[in-house]
């Protein structure tokens, strides 16, 4: 029976039949063995790999399939994957077959000596492994020729091994051509190993002949071998080798050129042989390599350009070109690298996107991403660790230096494109590395655990592919769309979700690590980068990158990066680990990441980026106009949509809403903040309590605040919004105490609410309940000020309880705010205690009564008595928490007086009683021991007067008179600066007075410094606003008087604000239109459009009509003044906006053309005149022929047409 020739099997048909028969164990085994063997005859790597994968699934324990997979990888040059496959064999990896394949893989990886050793071991262990013996000899050919020769002595010489001998001898000859005579004599004549006259012998002799042939003979031999054969390539390789030897012997550029000339001639003579072109191009590239090594960049570039012309489809030439231009520091390098990407994408679009190509395409993207991430240090080119997105921070502690990464804020401020380079090239790199994993959906998507994860990963890859369109606009767009379609079409049904128990191969594992590292980088950027307020686009790109990467985060990769053996690596993974644990609430133990948890992480990172952007936009805008605040709020709304459970979003929202005076919405946000944080301490606690304090004050003063338009989103508040309404409904019918309790549930950090509630309860005589609320206030209101107020509240409640036992009416008086009036009752109660009266006072916590007494005396401005009462209270008080509240009062009553005075001033200001406020602050400043502490309040009152003056002026339609400030008499000892205050108060306007006094407060009173700074900024903003409003008013006035140029120059002088403010732009546009400066008006309108201001919308809508009206008017004026050509230029460019305008425009244009015709006729240009007149008539005719035919102006049109018709006849008839 003839031996089976496996090459002639119809494998698809055979496998189909075997699959059909694979019903029992034996059938399955047979099918698996055939399937993995079929890979040897597959048409490509992927087809073979999937065939073996199917076999391995059926028979996972049979090592044969993995050995065949290793062989399959070696056939495609993938020795690393082959070795990985062999590593997973377990005990079977020691079998002779597996060891032989390992030796082959090792040989392919370039480790010849090691390969020889493995093969030797196999042969020693199993002397029947003759193949291993041949392999040992083969592997020793280059490193140890003598060992190879020794091994050949013991190899079998029977004809069964003729092919193996032929391979060995021919390889030996081509490796060392000068030994060919010796080899042929030894192995073909002296001790022949091949049958004389056999094909095998003839092939060895042919190889020997080529290896000793001269250059000319080899060039001639090219014609004798079949085009496209390996023999042709071998002959050409030997020819190239000879040229190379000659070049290196002569070692001059001339010899290189001579060699290239010879090859050029050979190429021209054999243009039908691609291999000849290949060898010519290879030699050109080799010449370029030599030139580049000697830094002869221009010569290298020339050689590369020729190679690129001959092989425009070969990416390496473009890569070499880009590399040389980069070395030359030529700016053309940017385009050169873009050209390389473009060629890669074109090849991919042409279908050339196998695993190897995908890996190659990923490389330049990786280079750019890594360069942007952490630019290498190169002193010669002036780059260093401060050039990338990250910089290295070194810290030495106890002699040990740690290196960590931090965001390079300075660099990113200077060049935000660096960050974009990192984003897009990293995404492109990751995308192509996925494609390099092959077509198996399970492997491509890194083995998603469930359908949801698969969908998230498909979406992520589709997002990543968008970077291709950014990097190479046209080809990238098409490729991105195609790839995204391919990812979306990945069959969810065919993807098997199964728990992956096998170890990842190197490519998959490395990709997972890269994802973890990239996400860690993004986390640090999101958390610490101060986004550029003008580059919201980069924040969007970063968010897309987060969405494109986080679905691939796996805990195994995170754990691997955190392992101690990677401790010195510069990654941000420790930060990511801490962030995940904090965000996801996983305190200790192993992390298990589900798709939902990854989603939460991505949401948090995106929200963080958005709120940072919102705050940076606010910081970048000194005057904080309302549209800017609303835009910032829009960004925060987006952050909330991404992450509705992030307390910081609510904190920032509350802060911005408070700045924008949207008090009601701010309260909702504060409430939501507390719901999210669940009363736990958070980094924003102090800030939110400060906001709460401001909101409480505004509420107390009945300040309504602004409301946002209906378009504004309050996403994420749906839950809280609904419950809030419910709360309010419930509150409507309850008592004041009930309402306050419900309020506290919503705003648990508002100390003011506790105060109000405790006092309301005291008023009802429910002192024990009031005390418990005071205690709760101490536990919940954690800022220093709030703590003091809560402790004082407790003292007050205790004191009032004691007082109430005999003098309840005094309690009511006290709670009504008339502290001074309650003094008598308080003194009486204390006297009763001091007289030692028994219960109900025992045990006597009468220190609280002394506190009350102090407060009563304070109200009567008896500062010494008050101080003494507080001291007594302090001495008698055993409670540490109350002592902490009493101590500042006992040591210095000034602050308490100041607070009292400030409260009175604020109350007066809130009620609009400016005179009362001024009176209060004047008396406080004259009585205070340190009057500089009252300067801030004085400045506030002055600012309030300035605001009031503007309000009055607006309602009166003109400037309102402002009373000059009355001088304040101060004692020179306490206030050595009194002269300066007098000067400040003598300033002409209230704004200037406010500014001067606030400046004085900032300089003289340390405690007021920060608040004074804030107040000064507000005054400056107000002042700028006033100046701007004045400029607008002046420009409007001038415009009304027709002084258009003067009005425009006033606007020009109004500063930067006038270039963005919609009011100013509206006025500017009108002025420019009236001045016939239409193009400038168009430019200003573009700014208005881009601003998105609601107030500008009507102008944007009306502008085309206005533009037409003014331009048409200008053209008419010009026609009247005989400036016919200028009028024509305007009319031609005009686009009518209504049917009426169309008619007017047609008439004017016809009229203008007729005028031009007459002028041309006068100038002797008859033909030109006729052309224009004809054009004019054509316009008129077309208008008359149109439906409606000129409308009401028809007769005017006909009259003009008749006149022009006559004129045209004259012109034509008078032609010479």
């Amino acid at each position, binding site marked *: 029976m003839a031996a089976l020739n496996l090459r002639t099997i119809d494998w698809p048909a055979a496998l189909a039949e075997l699959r059909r028969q694979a019903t029992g164990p034996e059938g399955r085994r047979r099918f698996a063995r055939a399937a993995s063997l079929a890979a040897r005859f597959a048409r490509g790597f992927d087809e073979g790999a999937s065939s073996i994968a199917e076999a391995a699934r059926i028979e996972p324990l049979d090592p044969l399939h993995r050995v065949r997979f290793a062989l399959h990888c070696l056939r495609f040059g993938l020795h690393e994957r082959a070795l990985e496959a062999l590593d997973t064999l377990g005990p079977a990896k020691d079998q002779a077959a597996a060891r032989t394949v390992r030796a082959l893989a090792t040989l392919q990886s370039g480790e*010849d000596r090691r390969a020889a050793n493995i093969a030797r071991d196999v042969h020693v262990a199993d002397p029947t492994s003759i193949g291993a013996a041949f392999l040992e000899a083969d592997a020793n050919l280059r490193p140890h020729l003598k060992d190879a020769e020794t091994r050949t002595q013991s190899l079998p010489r029977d004809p069964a091994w003729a092919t193996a001998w032929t*391979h060995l001898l021919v390889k030996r000859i081509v490796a060392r051509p000068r030994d060919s005579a010796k080899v042929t004599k030894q192995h073909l004549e002296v001790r022949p190993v091949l049958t004389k006259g056999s094909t095998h012998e003839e092939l060895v002799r042919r190889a020997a002949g080529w290896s000793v042939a001269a250059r000319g003979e080899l060039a001639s031999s090219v014609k004798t071998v079949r085009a496209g054969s390996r023999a042709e390539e071998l002959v050409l390789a030997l020819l190239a080798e000879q040229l190379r030897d000659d070049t290196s012997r002569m070692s001059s550029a001339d010899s290189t050129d001579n060699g290239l000339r010879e090859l050029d001639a050979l190429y021209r003579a054999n243009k039908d042989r691609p291999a000849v072109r290949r060898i010519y191009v290879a030699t050109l590239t080799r010449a370029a390599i030599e030139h580049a090594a000697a830094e002869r960049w221009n010569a290298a570039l020339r050689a590369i350009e020729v190679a690129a012309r001959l092989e425009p489809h070969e990416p390496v030439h473009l890569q070499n070109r880009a590399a040389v231009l*980069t070395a030359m520091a030529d700016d053309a*390098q940017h385009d050169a690298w873009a050209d390389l990407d473009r060629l890669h994408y074109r090849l991919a679009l042409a279908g050339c996107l196998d695993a190897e190509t995908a890996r190659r395409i990923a490389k330049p993207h990786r280079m750019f991403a890594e360069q942007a991430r952490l630019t*290498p240090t190169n002193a010669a080119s002036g780059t260093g660790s401060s050039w990338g997105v990250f910089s290295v921070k070194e810290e030495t502690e106890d002699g040990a230096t740690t290196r960590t990464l931090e965001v390079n804020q300075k660099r990113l401020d*200077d060049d935000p494109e660096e960050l974009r380079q990192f984003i897009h090239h990293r995404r492109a790199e990751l995308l192509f590395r996925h494609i390099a994993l092959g077509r198996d959906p399970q492997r491509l998507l890194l083995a998603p655990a469930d359908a949801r994860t698969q969908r998230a990963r498909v979406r992520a890859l589709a997002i990543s592919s968008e970077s291709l369109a950014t990097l190479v606009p046209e080809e990238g767009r098409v490729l991105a769309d195609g790839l995204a379609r391919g990812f979306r079409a990945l069959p969810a049904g065919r993807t098997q979700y199964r728990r992956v128990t096998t170890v990842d191969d190197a490519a998959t594992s490395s990709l997972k690590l890269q994802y973890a590292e990239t996400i860690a980088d993004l986390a640090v950027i999101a958390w610490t980068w101060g986004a550029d307020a003008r580059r919201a686009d980069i924040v969007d790109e970063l968010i897309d990158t987060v969405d494109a990467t986080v679905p691939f985060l796996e805990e195994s990769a995170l754990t691997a990066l955190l392992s101690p053996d990677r401790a010195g690596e510069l990654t941000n993974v420790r930060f990511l680990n801490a962030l995940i644990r904090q965000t996801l609430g996983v305190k200790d133990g192993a992390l298990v990441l589900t798709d939902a948890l990854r989603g939460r992480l991505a949401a948090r990172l995106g929200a963080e980026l958005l709120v940072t952007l919102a705050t940076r936009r606010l910081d970048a805008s000194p005057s904080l106009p309302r549209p800017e605040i609303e835009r910032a709020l829009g960004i925060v709304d987006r952050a909330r949509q991404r992450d509705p459970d992030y307390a910081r979003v609510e904190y920032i929202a509350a802060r911005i809403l408070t700045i924008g005076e949207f008090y009601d919405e701010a309260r909702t946000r504060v409430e939501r903040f507390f719901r999210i944080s669940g009363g736990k301490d958070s980094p924003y606690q102090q800030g939110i309590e400060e906001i709460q304090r401001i909101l409480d004050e505004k509420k107390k003063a009945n300040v309504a605040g602004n409301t946002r338009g209906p378009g504004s989103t309050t996403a994420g508040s749906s839950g809280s919004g609904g419950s809030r309404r419910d709360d309010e409904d419930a509150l409507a019918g309850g008592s004041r105490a009930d309402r306050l309790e419900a309020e506290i549930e919503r705003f648990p950090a508002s100390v003011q609410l506790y105060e109000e509630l405790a006092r309301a309860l005291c008023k009802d005589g429910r002192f024990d309940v009031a005390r418990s609320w005071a205690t709760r206030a101490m536990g919940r209101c954690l800022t220093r000020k709030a703590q003091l107020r809560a402790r004082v509240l407790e003292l007050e409640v205790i004191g009032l309880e004691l007082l109430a036992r005999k003098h309840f009416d005094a309690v009511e008086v006290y709670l009504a705010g008339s502290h001074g009036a309650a003094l008598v009752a308080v003194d009486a109660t204390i006297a009763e205690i001091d007289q030692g009266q028994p219960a109900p006072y025992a045990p006597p916590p009468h220190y609280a009564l002394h506190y009350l007494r102090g407060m009563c005396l304070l109200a009567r401005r008896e500062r010494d008595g008050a101080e003494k009462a507080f001291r007594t209270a302090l001495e008698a008080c055993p409670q540490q928490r109350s002592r902490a509240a009493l101590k500042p009062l006992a040591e210095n009553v000034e602050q308490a007086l100041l607070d009292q005075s400030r409260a009175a001033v604020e109350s007066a200001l809130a009620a609009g009683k400016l005179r009362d406020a001024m009176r209060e602050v004047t008396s406080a400043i004259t009585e205070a021991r340190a009057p500089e502490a009252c300067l801030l309040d004085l400045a506030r009152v002055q600012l309030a007067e300035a605001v009031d003056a503007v309000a009055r002026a607006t309602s009166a339609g003109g400037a309102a008179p402002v009373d000059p400030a009355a001088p304040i008499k101060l004692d020179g000892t306490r206030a050595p600066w009194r002269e300066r205050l007098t000067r400040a108060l003598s300033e002409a306007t209230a704004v200037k007075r406010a500014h001067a006094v606030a400046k004085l407060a900032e300089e003289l009173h340390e405690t007021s410094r920060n608040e004074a700074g804030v107040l000064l900024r507000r005054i400056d903003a107000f002042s700028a606003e006033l100046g701007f409003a004045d400029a607008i008013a002046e420009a409007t006035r001038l415009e009304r008087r027709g002084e258009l140029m003067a009005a425009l120059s006033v606007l020009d002088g109004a500063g930067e604000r006038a270039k963005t403010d919609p009011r100013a732009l509206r006025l500017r546009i009108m002025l420019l239109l009236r001045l016939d400066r239409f193009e400038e008006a168009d430019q200003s309108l573009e700014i208005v459009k881009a601003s998105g201001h609601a107030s500008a919308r009507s102008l944007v809508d009306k502008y085309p009509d206005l533009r037409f009206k003014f331009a048409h008017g200008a053209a008419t004026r010009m026609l009247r003044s005989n400036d016919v050509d200028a009028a024509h230029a305007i009319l031609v460019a005009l686009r009518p906006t209504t049917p009426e305008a169309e008619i007017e425009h047609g008439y004017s244009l016809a009229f203008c053309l007729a005028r031009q015709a007459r002028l041309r006729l006068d100038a002797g240009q008859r033909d030109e005149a006729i052309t224009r007149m004809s054009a004019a008539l054509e316009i008129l005719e077309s208008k008359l022929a149109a439906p409606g035919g000129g409308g009401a102006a028809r007769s005017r049109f006909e009259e003009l047409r008749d006149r022009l018709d006559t004129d045209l006849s004259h012109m034509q008839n008078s032609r010479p």
Partner: protein
Amino acid sequence: MTGAVGKRPRPKGRLVVDPNNAYARLGVSPLSTTEEIKAFILNKRSKAQASNRSRGDDDFGAAEAEMTRLQEIEEEIGTPRARAKYDARHPQNELLTVQPARADRRFELRARADLAGAWLIEELGANDLFPSAESIALWAPDIDADLDQILKRFEILERDARNILERTKTLDQKDR
């Protein structure tokens, strides 16, 4: 606003190679094989050891420093795995080096043996056993008899021959 939104990023900085990279420190091309790098390190190490043996008191420590330096380089690029990790972190070393195309490598000395092997397979076929992943005998040293029987039914040449025979018979019958 600076930069172009949605366009290819173009930062001010240029691509740079760290002149102190492992290849430059060793004095080899980033395109060298790991085997060549190992041989180069071995050679340098031998020289350092020789100089250590013959050193004078003046250059005490120089050879040790050289050995340490070589050790560091070997840890970075001396093994395929370490090198793959190093190259992944510093891809510019390879990409900014002018290099031959992948297809050119088959004309190089090392790959010429593979080229010769491919030529012999073209001439002699791949059925026999010889040290290459192409060798069919290495893939299937022995095939079960039952599988052999089934596969035989799918041999294309035989089947074609059978078809021709049957067609000839039919034509003969028609002629008759």
